[in-house]
């Protein structure tokens, strides 16, 4: 009976550790634990029999069994950790996604701001810094605001050069028209504002004309300054500063040529030095001159029409095409595409929803 009284704990340990190590999953490990340490487990059974041993035997067998129990428990915990790690690894592998699959782009990627809106905001940012407000007027105008108040004599060829869209005559013989320029806003502003005046007037304008560089509807921006001291010198400065800021270049060279507009005297057209290569135009360098705007000192008759005394006040005004300067800055080749709403053109030439033109962050990104 010596063999039963002094169990071979080493052999038992090896057997149990082998069983634990062999457990392939949590269930098999539990089975091995029950086999060893369960109520009827082999170690438990041995422990139960300690009481039947002599003191001397108990002193050797007891610690050995306790040692065995500790080792088996540790082996089970170790095995459990290994199995848990393996299970996690397997789960992670199972949960793997193909992240090369494309996600749906969000609305901020798809949305666009039209170049005309963007450029109008750029203009606004620049001129707001110089103290200009933004004035507006109606598209459907009277002959008075579009022509007469702007010093276009009745029947003068300059009127005819405007290719005006008319509405049908009213019973009193008058007829409304679509404004051919944003200059009527000058008169409307002068009528309601006491100088000093500094405004820009962006808006839609219309002429009955259509080819590659003309559309029956287009956008202009008018600028008007009226105070007691404004001169052509100031006009030059404003336009030079504007062109530098707008085209985002350090220097520009402008050429002022005498010209004629009924509503300014003296009148000038302004060319800007540039270099063309393909559809790209570089402003401020090169050998070419590009006409970009018309301007002049407000004609005394126009000041009078706006209710302002031309001997006390004086001022200057300028006008240019928003679509045109957008084309120059951003390289669109064809004006007609501006109004065709082709989604491909808008996606390409349009601006992202959060491209907000500011002076502190730069007009364009």
């Amino acid at each position, binding site marked *: 009976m010596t063999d039963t009284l002094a169990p071979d704990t080493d052999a038992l340990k090896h057997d149990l550790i082998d069983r634990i190590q062999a457990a392939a999953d949590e269930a098999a490990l539990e089975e091995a634990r029950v086999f060893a340490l369960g109520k009827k487990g082999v170690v438990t059974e041995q422990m139960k029999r300690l009481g039947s041993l002599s003191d001397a035997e108990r002193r050797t067998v007891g610690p050995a069994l306790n040692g065995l129990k500790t080792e088996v428990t540790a082996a089970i915990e170790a095995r459990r950790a290994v199995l848990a790690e393996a299970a996690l690894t397997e789960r992670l592998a199972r949960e793997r996604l193909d992240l090369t699959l494309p996600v*749906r782009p969000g609305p901020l990627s798809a949305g666009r701001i039209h170049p005309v809106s963007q450029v109008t905001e750029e203009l606004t940012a620049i001129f707001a810094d110089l103290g200009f407000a933004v004035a*507006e007027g109606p598209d*459907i105008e009277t002959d008075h605001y579009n022509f007469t108040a702007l010093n276009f004599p009745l029947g003068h*060829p300059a009127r005819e*050069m405007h290719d005006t869209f008319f*509405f*049908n005559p009213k019973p009193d013989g008058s007829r409304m028209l679509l404004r051919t320029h944003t200059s009527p806003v000058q008169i409307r502003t002068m009528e309601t504002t006491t100088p000093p005046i500094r405004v820009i007037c962006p808006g839609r304008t219309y002429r009955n004309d259509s080819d590659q560089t003309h559309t029956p509807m287009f956008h202009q921006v008018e600028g008007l300054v009226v105070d007691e001291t404004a001169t*052509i010198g100031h006009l030059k400065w404003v336009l030079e500063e504007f062109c530098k800021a707008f085209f985002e270049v350090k220097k520009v060279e402008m050429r*002022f040529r005498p010209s004629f507009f009924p509503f300014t005297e003296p009148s000038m057209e302004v060319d800007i030095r540039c270099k063309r290569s393909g559809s790209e135009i570089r402003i401020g360098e090169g050998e070419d001159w590009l006409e970009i705007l018309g301007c002049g000192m407000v004609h005394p008759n126009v000041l009078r029409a706006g209710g302002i005394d031309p001997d006390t006040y004086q001022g200057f005004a300028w006008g240019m095409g928003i679509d045109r300067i957008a084309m120059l800055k951003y390289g669109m080749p064809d004006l007609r595409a501006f109004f*065709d709403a082709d989604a491909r053109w808008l996606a390409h030439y349009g601006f992202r929803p959060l491209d907000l033109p500011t002076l502190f962050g730069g007009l364009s990104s």
Partner: protein
Amino acid sequence: MKFTLTWLKQHLETEASLEAILDKLNAIGMEVEKVDDPGKALAPFVIARVISAEKHPNADKLRVCIVDTGSGDPVQVVCGAPNARTGMTGVFAPPGTHVPGTGVDLKVGTIRGVESRGMLVSERELMLSEDHDGIIDLPEGAPVGRPYAAWAGLADPVVEVAVTPNRPDCLGITGIARDLAAAGLGRETTPAIEPVAGEGDCPVSVTLAFEGGAPLCPMFGLRLIRGVRNGPSPAWLQARLRAIGLRPINALVDVTNFLTHDRNRPLHVFDAAKVRGDLVVRRARAGESLLALDGKTYALDETMCVIADDAGVESLAGIMGGEASGCTEETTDVLVESALWDPLNIAQTGRRLGVNSDARFRFERGVDPAFAVPGLELATRMILELCGGTPTKITVAGAVPDARRVVAFPLAEVKRLSGLTIDDGAIVDTLGRLGFEVTGAGPVRAVVPPSWRPDIEGKADLVEEVVRITGLDQIVSMPLSRSPTVAPAVLTPGQVRARNARRTLAARGLVEAMTWSFVPKSHAEAFGGGQPELALANPIASDLSDMRPSLIPGLAAAAQRNADRGTPDTALFEVGQVFRGDRPDDQKRAAAAVRRGTAGLAGAGRHWSGAAPAVGAYDAKADALAILEAAGAPIDRVQVTADAPAWFHPGRSGTLRLGPLVLGHFGELHPTTLAALDVEGPLSACEIILDAVPAQKPRPTKAKPALSLPELMAVSRDFAFVVDRAVAAADVLKAAAGADKALIERVGVFDVYEGKGIPDGAKSVAIEVVLQPRERTLTDAEIDAVGKRVVEAVGKATGATLRG
């Protein structure tokens, strides 16, 4: 306005180069539009003599020529021209020359074993004519070595300038010369005109018959020249006219065309043999017509001015002569007319008849009235010189009007408007050079503009004259004064709304379009527009005829165009003007969004994660509310009513209201509307009138209301109601929220269901009611009591029962 350099130099003595002249033209207000300098391309071609021309040893049709080019050793050239012969003088191009007619750059070559160093050229190779039968054969004595083009008078540059409508004087080359001379580019050399002493009175009398009415002709001068020999005009005159794009006709006509461009003095010549009786200048009578010199017949009426004889209308005054009395090579007696016409009437008549002529162009802008008679004298001299003949005295009907006026000119005005300091003497001198009479002394001078400057009205005009001749480049940029404070906001509330709406819609994935302000009438009518006062009288195209009453038709049509181009799913928006009438207040600022196909907020089209559904009324509602929120509308007080306008689907659209105000509409378009627009759905649309959103009241502080976060947890309870299908979810929510205004924080719909388990014609609406206790935790009994009130309130308002 075109002229050649040589022609200009007939009136301007100058040492200036072509480039300097062009720069000065730009600088003084005559924009150079085009310069055609044929001499430049022909510069390398020189006159050369063929010393010998021998048969090519290896080719029957070729000759080996030894050519004296006037410099260096004679050159050997292989030539295929049949007229190449010993002793002839021709035109030679050395290697390296670009030959304009062939586009080829010449190289030293070997032709059938013989070296050829250059080329003898034909007229076609120089693009002078189509002649390619042989090389240019110049007369004996042509100077060998000289550039051919200069010798042949082909090197005269043609300049085209844009003359602004205020400067009719520069529609004559003398006027251009005068301006250049005033700007320091030389000396005016136009000779004075000496009158021609006529023999006897002009046998044809002229009557200006405008009894009582406006005299459309202030003055009419006429002279007969008998015994002229008309025929082709001399080569120099023909060359001048051709150079500026005119076709020589015969000497008499060519003289009038020459003086039109040389002096801005249009004239007319009648064949006296074809004029019956005397001439009357009068208004045309209804029913009269004229076969004009352009071969077209014009129907005339009493708004137009004509020159008539006993046989009827002979000429459309100041615009174009008649075919019947025109001068031909058979003409022997010629009546020469030089008159003044009412510019407005000329412009109106020209427009109404659609006639453009050099005469009309000048008379409607204004000719020099003082030159009418001298111009007639000059024409007489030229005709006598070219055609011979005997002139009568000039008969003048009417008189040259006195347009002399005095402008009081404070010299300080130059500095006041331009910022440029010019001394008084220089100002007076500049005006003098331009023909202004300046008198007086001191700060304000009396200035009389010359008769050829109808544009000068006041002191600002004189400032322009001084500044443009002095040079705009002399004006130094002056910084505009800047505000000493931080720049304030400049946009109006309406502008801010438009901007916010634009950025919001773009951020919702919509693409901003700019569509025409005018739409087809049928589209306008389909959207409540098409009023007569919004229809253009002269639309550029029949489908751009009416001012748009809404942005939706333009956007829907654009979406369809994109679909036709292969992009069926587009989301477009526009922020812009719509028109209710033709008064300024009738123009409204609107924002509209259109989604087509599957272009919803989350994306469009098929995708592995799930295909996007077709767009519908709820997409439109979401866009509409986003616009309203961006525009600053109190969004929680906005109501939806089911009474959108007729262009929307009646069951899938809504009107957004704020109390009595209509802010806009949204929904799917009516199938009839889609058909009228020729657009295929699915398509959702919304439009908000930004101007209709009430302005936010200004507040004394920018502080937001204090935030109060309750300490107690909110409690949520769900209720599923069965209601009639027609009951609006908003009514269910409103009743539920009103059941206990103190405790109920918010209510929301989390499920709507129709089908199995729900009676026909009814639907289940499941709502969540969130209670927020403020002072103490609610007991179950209290919560149940609120729940009971919710069920009662909803039941009472909508007939709802709790779903079993």
